[in-house]
């Protein structure tokens, strides 16, 4: 296994589980399950036991490994020099399980659907661009930017609304963008996180070839997960293009006054998506957009920025739901934390977070008190 020479170096001191001020446990899997085995240190020790032949690959072992949301809180707070590799180590262990073919059924189904259909929804590729139907967003020809929407933004009923809001907003702001529609393929971020590195490389190669053939130089992603894959993983596979999350291009346009806004009296709290925040260090762009709206009061949650608590959807859990369910699920805990701020709206900048938190709001029966809206949806509602 990759990183096998590192796993014995975990002291299991537990800093990885916390926020930087120790005010709460911040590992979503540990926070839900509460056994040490579900913490990053626990995983390290179990992986070592498994590599040494002291433990077998069991349903429990799989649950422990695949419940990691790859949120990188452990990377942020581990005190050791190998901290950067923690999530990679868990992914490497998943790769071994995938290679053995002994993985949780929802993981197997997800990977199979991507392999067969190019998306996890078993929906035809021809339907990929349907979301853009009555928007000003056009197919990609030679526009300045490729607007990459991804599987969730193309097919999920809730996410499609966000795709439309973002696409429309970017066009209205005067940006030259185009989409691939049915030619778009899964970015593979979750495929990689779930340990199917071969399939990931295949998807990446397909996207890179497609972008190259079309002469794409700059990409705007709707989703932080795709942003992460394009920015951090594709270059190593030959994918050289400029990549932006949509908030990173929208923020300067708003600052420049290209998106005229009216006053909106809103109390909002912003939930940092792990793949935009901790994985890629972007905390300011979404906040600067919200702060540009006159009348919007931005209320921070107890855990924010590099200490933000994951919604529990990362690392493929959005699709596999290993980490979901129950009142201690990360998304429900996060919603309760948002409620404590006094905000009316949880602002998000990730499709998976949007869906996870919206479901949690319903489970908490807080629909009349809290609304989940993408940053772009808030801006759209505040357009002059």
């Amino acid at each position, binding site marked *: 296994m990759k990183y096998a020479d590192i796993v*014995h170096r975990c002291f299991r*001191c537990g*800093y990885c589980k*916390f926020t930087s*001020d120790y*005010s709460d446990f911040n590992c979503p899997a540990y926070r839900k399950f*509460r056994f040490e085995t579900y913490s990053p240190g626990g995983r390290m020790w179990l992986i070592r036991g498994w590599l040494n032949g002291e433990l077998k690959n069991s349903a429990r072992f799989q649950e*422990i490994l695949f419940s990691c949301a790859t949120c990188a809180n452990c990377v942020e707070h581990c*005190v050791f020099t190998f901290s950067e590799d923690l999530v990679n180590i868990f992914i490497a262990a998943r790769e071994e399980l995938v290679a053995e073919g002994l993985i949780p059924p929802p993981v197997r189904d997800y990977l199979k659907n991507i392999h067969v259909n190019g998306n996890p929804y078993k929906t035809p590729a021809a339907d990929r661009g349907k979301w853009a139907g009555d928007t000003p967003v056009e197919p990609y020809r030679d526009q300045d930017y490729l607007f990459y929407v991804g599987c969730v933004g193309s097919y999920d009923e809730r996410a499609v609304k966000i795709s439309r809001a973002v696409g429309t907003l970017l066009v209205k702001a005067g940006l030259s963008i185009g989409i691939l529609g049915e030619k778009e393929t899964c970015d593979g971020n979750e495929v990689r996180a779930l340990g199917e590195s071969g399939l990931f490389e295949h998807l990446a190669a397909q996207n890179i070839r497609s972008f190259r053939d079309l002469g794409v130089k700059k990409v705007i992603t709707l989703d932080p997960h795709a942003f992460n894959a394009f920015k951090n993983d594709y270059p190593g596979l030959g994918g050289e293009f400029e990549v932006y999350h949509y908030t990173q291009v929208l923020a300067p346009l708003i600052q420049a006054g290209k998106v005229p806004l009216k006053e909106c009296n809103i109390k909002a709290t912003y939930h940092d998506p792990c793949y935009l925040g901790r994985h890629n260090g972007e905390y300011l762009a979404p906040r600067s957009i919200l702060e540009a709206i006159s009348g919007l009061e931005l209320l921070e949650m107890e855990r924010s920025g590099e200490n933000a608590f994951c919604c529990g959807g990362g690392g493929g859990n959005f699709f596999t739901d290993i980490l979901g369910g129950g009142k201690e699920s990360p998304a429900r805990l996060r919603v309760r934390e948002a409620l404590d701020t006094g905000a009316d709206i949880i602002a998000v900048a990730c499709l998976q977070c949007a869906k996870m938190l919206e479901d949690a709001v319903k489970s908490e029966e807080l629909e009349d008190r809290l609304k989940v809206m993408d940053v772009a949806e808030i801006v759209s509602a505040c357009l002059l």
Partner: protein
Amino acid sequence: MTDIAQSLAGIVGEAYVSNHPEEAYFYARDPGLMPPHAPDYVVVPESVEEIQEIVRLANREKIPVVPMGAGLALTGLVIPLKGGIVIDMKRMNRILKVNEGGRHAIVEGGTSQGLLKAYLEKHHPRLRHSIPDSPATATIAANVMIHGQGRLTQQYGFNSDMISGLEVVLATGEVCPIGSCAISSDWFSKGAPLPDLTGLFLGWFGATGIITKIGVKLYPKKRMRDVEIFITDREDLVPEMVYELTHTEMVEDINIFAQPKPMIFKDNHHITLFFTGDTDEELEFKRKMIWHALDRFIKSKDGGFMGVPPVMKPTLLDMPQRSVSRFADVKKGGGFEYSGPIIMVDKYPACAHKILELAEKYDLGYSGMARIIGRSHAMMFGFAFTFNRADPEMMERTRQALHEVSLFALEAGGVFWKATVDEQKMAVEKMDPATLGLMNMIRIQMDPNGIMNPGNWEVTEV
């Protein structure tokens, strides 16, 4: 699920009971060098009532019960030596009350040091507790149970001296308040003026009861905190230096470290002095008092204050000091263990010699760290050795070195801190028979079925 597992699930809920090999593997071990022994069950309760039910079940079925905080003692104290049920306490981590005027907090038995620190910083910025340098996830109750030390130990003694009451679940499942809280709703004293019953639990490693609530004394938190380091190569003079420093009553905490790396540290003893103040004037006054306390050693050229580089200050002022955990991986091996006998300060030179001797003999990386307890009343001298977890031969060498430390400490008049099972046996062998008899009587009375963390303090077997 077995019948016992089902009964446990009926108490804490199925999600919080495990008899899976994965939990058995993990909870069989701590980060130190003790051999593993697997529990039969691991449970994560949420309430005192659940713990009562678990203990009643265990007592009825004569199953061992081992309460566990973060499991960071390193000496195997929460390894279930005879199997049974490990109770992971960390789900019970609520801060129940902070009495600002009375300077104490009441917290649940699984509350971490880090959580209380964060809570106080946010809600009671003028209060603090004696935080140890164990990782932030270490629990307050477990630290007190092992007579841990912390940042205020030089001023107020062991952390177990800084408590204001306990709530304990006995081996029979009864809940027993200890201290003023046994009579009053206020948790201001752990004993006095009543008979102090905390001694029936503290230092017993869970062998007499499970702490479910704890009153923690809080102390003034000054706005500023700084650190100075006095360096000397005369370990024989360290006790005198400490005596002078404690005489000032100006120092918050005194740690002395000696380690071979980085190279500039080698062969020197670094008396690290933390002090606090609400104003610049107060801080500078204390700094001057501390400086002047050591004038004669500077004049005799036996030492001097080093300028603490700005880059080093955050590491030293960090609470808890994360750098302590980093020591485990200095050799890229992920392991360290230390024996930390409580011993008189005048034994510092002997301890400093011994750690060098053992490091050389067993070819180990080391760090010697002493923390002064009270006004020079005693010290904890940590003989810490780092090892590579993937190198069994090195681990064995480390075990042997630590065994020699145990022999040395006992011979030098020290008392083992958080003693391993082997050290407990050594201590019991040397103990006055009347004391031993009393311990035996207490244990038998309090845990007639021998279910509470068995294997620890089993004086009857000696």
